């Protein structure tokens, strides 16, 4: 039987974004959840977590902005992103979130009450910063992203939490801070595994686009979870587990990003998700 389609040509245009965008999904998420952790830790008086969380948030915001501008067709026009407020466009909303987050995370480096207040603002903005990227790619015509429009935001948030927790595992700090990092690492890694499974189920009609990097990312999370679960482990093992968590989180984003490009080029995937629509 001849398959539906036109000479096997792709129906959609593949996303034009470079892999800098996949890296941005990671850096933005890491910055966002780091800020949230720092905000929560500041109330608990955990000085190390607060300090490193805020620094990571600011550095992450700067790197994120650079990565985004790098990918634009006309870089000097980056500021045009802020010439309107357009709630229908997740990219526009996201740019406003990132801009506000960047300002707040810079303010959080100030000493005293001003810094604390800005830190809380950054913490509150950090979570949508980590999650909106899932909304952004979920609301495209790309079959696998479109199918995951409700499961990508939780996946990206969980993966962002893994990256932040893993960063704190690597940093270490006081005993209380290490215990915190370990607990958050275990929780978030479990959450990411759960989010992986729900995402996979949601895209089952077009999951052929998920490559080996997707499977690798999941096993990376499993392995780093296993290390996180070891009580009173040596320093080297703790750092190794954290690094593995960071790499796995990055790998998850790359896997989703690349799957989108593959999926867009497959006309059968486009037909498949439109055949049985409500």
């Amino acid at each position: 039987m001849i398959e539906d389609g036109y000479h096997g040509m792709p129906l959609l245009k593949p996303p034009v974004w470079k892999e800098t965008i996949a890296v941005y999904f990671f850096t933005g998420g890491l910055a966002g959840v780091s800020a949230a952790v720092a905000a929560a830790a500041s109330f608990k008086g955990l000085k190390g977590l607060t300090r490193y969380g805020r620094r990571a948030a600011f550095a992450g915001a700067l790197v994120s902005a650079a990565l985004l501008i790098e990918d634009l067709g006309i870089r000097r026009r980056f500021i045009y992103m802020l010439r309107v407020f357009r709630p229908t466009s997740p990219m526009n909303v996201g740019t406003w979130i990132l801009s506000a987050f960047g300002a707040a995370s810079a303010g959080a480096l100030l000493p005293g009450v001003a810094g604390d207040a800005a830190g809380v603002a950054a913490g509150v903005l950090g979570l949508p910063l980590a999650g909106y990227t899932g909304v952004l790619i979920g609301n495209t015509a790309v079959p696998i992203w479109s199918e995951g429009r409700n499961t990508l935001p939780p996946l990206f948030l969980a993966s962002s939490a893994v990256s932040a927790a893993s960063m704190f595992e690597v940093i270490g700090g006081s005993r209380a801070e290490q215990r915190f990092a370990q607990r958050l690492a275990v929780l978030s890694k479990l959450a990411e595994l759960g989010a992986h499974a729900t995402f996979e189920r949601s895209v089952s009609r077009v999951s052929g686009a998920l490559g080996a990097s997707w499977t690798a990312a999941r096993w990376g999370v499993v392995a780093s979870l296993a290390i996180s679960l070891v009580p009173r482990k040596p320093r080297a093992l703790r750092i190794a587990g954290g690094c593995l968590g960071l790499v796995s989180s990055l790998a998850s984003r790359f896997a989703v990003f690349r799957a989108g490009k593959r999926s867009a080029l497959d006309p059968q995937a486009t037909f498949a998700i439109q055949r049985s629509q409500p």
Partner: protein
Amino acid sequence: MTAKGFFTDTTLCIGCKACEVACKQWNGLPGDGFNFTGMSYDNTAHLGDSTWRHVSFLERPQPLGGTIASDFSWLMMSDVCKHCARAGCLEACPTGAITRTEFDTVFIQPDICNGCGYCVSACPFGVVDRREQDGRAWKCTLCYDRLKGDLEPACAKACPTQSIQYGDLVQLRIRAKERVEDLHQRGMGEAYLYGEKQEGTEGLNAFFLLADKPQKYNLPPNPVVPTKRVRSSWLSMGVASLGVAAMILSALVKR
């Protein structure tokens, strides 16, 4: 201004590609290169940043109703931007570069577009693309400049068989329905309108009369403007954000 659009009657298309040429010429678009695709007579392959009309060719080993009895038939279609009533590219555009004109068409303002590429992925028809040379997104403007001068779009002007018809959308729809009825009476039961009504896009301002499944012409059977379903995504992000906040707080509580 009344809403303007295209009615492309593919049963009248003879595959001459005058529309492609007229479009390139009027809009001063770069060439696509000298390519041989091997796909019937279609060496243009797809719409793109510099190709705003594209004639597709289907050679079918099956008869077409109401035509001379033969076990073979040709279908040709001049594809174009659909100027959706609810446009995915427009809603996705973060800079406001993509606007709805006074003619109810969708137009990308080249002096605003910063080449973010979101519209490329937001289009369920694969129409918009980013041009390598200047970094901006481009697509059919429905000859916005000609419309302003009270001229019909270049492709419609050049079409020798009136396969491409330009005009008031209301009138085009009436004419299209009559044409389908006429074709049905003549025995071409396959003829139907694509995109005249379409739930996911709320209708296409450039719609088509087709004689085979949309997929055969590389058109999506049931396209949905992606941003139409954005609310549930934001909601799931909100819930997941609360989840991460709860994780952080529970990890902080001393046990």
